[in-house]
């Protein structure tokens, strides 16, 4: 863990209450978000990465049960912080870009109004006109032409790509210390996705805070992130600087994920690689290594859960074989 961490997540566990019992979505997750870095959270659906993002924001859903552990920001545990103060942090020090721009914007208010309101936490004293002007400037920066027209427009009048740019602008306007992007390109067409990825890459240079990028796309992660944490079924199984992770993966799950990527060099007709099996039951969590059931390299020691430990400098893995 780097010494200059902005956010330290320590032993975070989150349960959701369901009809069948407590769903252990996150179990003993430890991660740190260094200053000025882009950290990627990669994993398949159900890995808990989105829940981790929401936990950072303090916006866990209503059916959340037990929450244990610490999320430290400047020494304060966000999990213990009273709701009123958490509310001030959101849209101020922490900002989030949601997955689906179609539904993330309020249909009956203009873009301008929503961008102005989003800034109120960060700049409570600045007046509406000035906030609107800043919004217009930011729209230009994220590549939206004719910002004045867009400010007056309503979400349904914009295309998907433009809406996502608006969401990015909204987050940047808050000048946050931590920007969380939850699957920012998943809901977009591939061509638009490429544009947004380029945009994020360009903006990153001027952005002085940390970014947490949550995605299931390894390509996106490899292109934009400095460090990556791989999550599986509610645990972090490997974390490392990006080059190290992709160049020298030290966990069977990471290896499997990389193998699943479609290789343009493959012959047509070659069967796609998959990971056999399915996600484990998170209500009745099996003992031992969580990936063992699907792991091609498992052996008897895997009945005991491997801890997440350093295997090299800055490179952690939760596998006995690492």
């Amino acid at each position, binding site marked *: 863990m780097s010494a200059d961490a902005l956010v330290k997540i320590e032993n975070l566990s989150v349960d959701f209450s369901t009809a069948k019992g407590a769903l252990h979505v996150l179990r003993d997750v430890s991660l740190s978000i260094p200053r000025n870095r882009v950290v990627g959270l990669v994993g398949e659906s159900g890995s808990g990465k989105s829940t981790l993002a929401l936990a950072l924001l303090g*916006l866990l859903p209503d059916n959340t049960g037990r929450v244990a552990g610490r999320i430290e920001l400047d020494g304060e545990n966000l999990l213990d912080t009273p709701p009123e103060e958490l509310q001030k942090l959101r849209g101020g020090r922490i900002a989030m870009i949601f997955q689906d721009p179609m539904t993330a914007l309020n*249909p009956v208010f203009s873009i301008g109004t929503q961008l102005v309101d989003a800034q109120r936490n960060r700049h409570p004293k600045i007046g509406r006109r000035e906030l609107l002007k800043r919004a217009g400037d930011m729209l230009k920066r994220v590549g939206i032409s004719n910002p004045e027209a867009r400010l007056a427009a309503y979400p349904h009048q914009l295309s998907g790509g433009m809406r996502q740019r608006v969401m990015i602008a909204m987050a940047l306007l808050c000048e946050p210390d931590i920007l969380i992007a939850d699957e920012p390109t998943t809901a977009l067409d591939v061509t638009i996705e490429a544009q947004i990825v380029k945009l994020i890459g360009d903006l990153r240079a001027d952005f002085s805070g940390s970014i947490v990028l949550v995605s299931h796309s390894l390509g996106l992660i490899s292109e934009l992130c400095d460090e990556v944490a791989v999550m599986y079924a509610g645990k972090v199984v490997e974390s490392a600087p990006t080059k190290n992770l992709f160049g020298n993966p030290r966990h069977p799950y990471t290896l499997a994920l990389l193998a699943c990527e479609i290789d343009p060099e493959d012959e047509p007709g070659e069967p796609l690689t998959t990971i056999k099996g399915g996600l484990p039951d998170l209500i009745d969590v099996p003992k031992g290594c969580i990936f063992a059931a699907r792991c091609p390299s498992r052996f008897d020691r895997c009945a005991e859960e491997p801890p997440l430990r350093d295997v090299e400098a800055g490179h952690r893995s939760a596998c006995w074989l690492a």
Partner: protein
Amino acid sequence: MNRFWTEGSLFRYGAFRLATAVLVLIGSMTLLCCLTLLVPGDPATILLGPRATPEAAALLREQMGLNLPLYERVAVFFANALRGDLGVDVINGRPVAGMVFAALPNTMLLAVSAIGLAVLIGIPIGCYAAVRQGSLLDQALAVASVGLVATPSYVVAITLLYFFSVRLGWFPVLGAGDAGDPLDQLHHLVLPTIALAVGWIGYIARLVRSSLLEVLNEPYIRTARAYGQPERRIVMKYALKLACIPTVAILGVGIGELMGGALFVEIIFNRPGLGSLIFDAIRNRNYPIVQGGILVVVSIFVLVNLLVDFSYAWLDPRVRESLGRAGGGA
């Protein structure tokens, strides 16, 4: 002109809706004129019933243009109506328009008060019930609203009349109060307004509650929370505007029901108004008044629906794109 006529502008939407409304009005007038065709035999005699003298029948026939072909009749009716001439009544020969427009303000007062009361009480109750789900008020609302909505308005009116006027004597039983005394008029207005509004309060409250709950679960509300908007602002500004849209929609249709209910209330509380006028006219077989009165009621209904559509489009910009064709379209 071009600036106004852009896609999705309120103006263009309004123009189309207005055209539709006029067409519907003409259709209604046609229907009213057609009704006399439903009667076998000589409409004039039938309409006048037992009091049909040959002179009265001839007068009515001339009056209503029963000798003219249908389209001419509608045209004449329409033209006259635009000029404010709704014919004369068969008994005393007084102009119908005068009688109708004298009675109209009373009915409008009642209707507007009832809607106002229902909205004023219903929306906050619905809001509260949504934000404090499962509370005592929420449960009471669930039970009471169904009962109040299902019960016929005249039953409610008579019940209120019985308890508060006959038994308790808190409110007067008859009439609209002295013309010169606003306070007395208000006193007379209370029970009838409550009688009309009561079902609506429950309905609106439930509607606001369920749409508010739906809206509060939407992703864009989560975005607002993610940007640290205080919960109060989220409910009052972001969620409520959206949640009121279904309420506005039903108000348009509801006005028709309300007018029906107003008719009963006027009769039960013996208030002057359009309802009493039309009702007495039916009993006295005074058809021109019936026709004129109903035409005015329908016009108001169409007008209110137009206003409702308008505010609907103002509240929800997505609606402005669709132009609401008459007849529904494919």
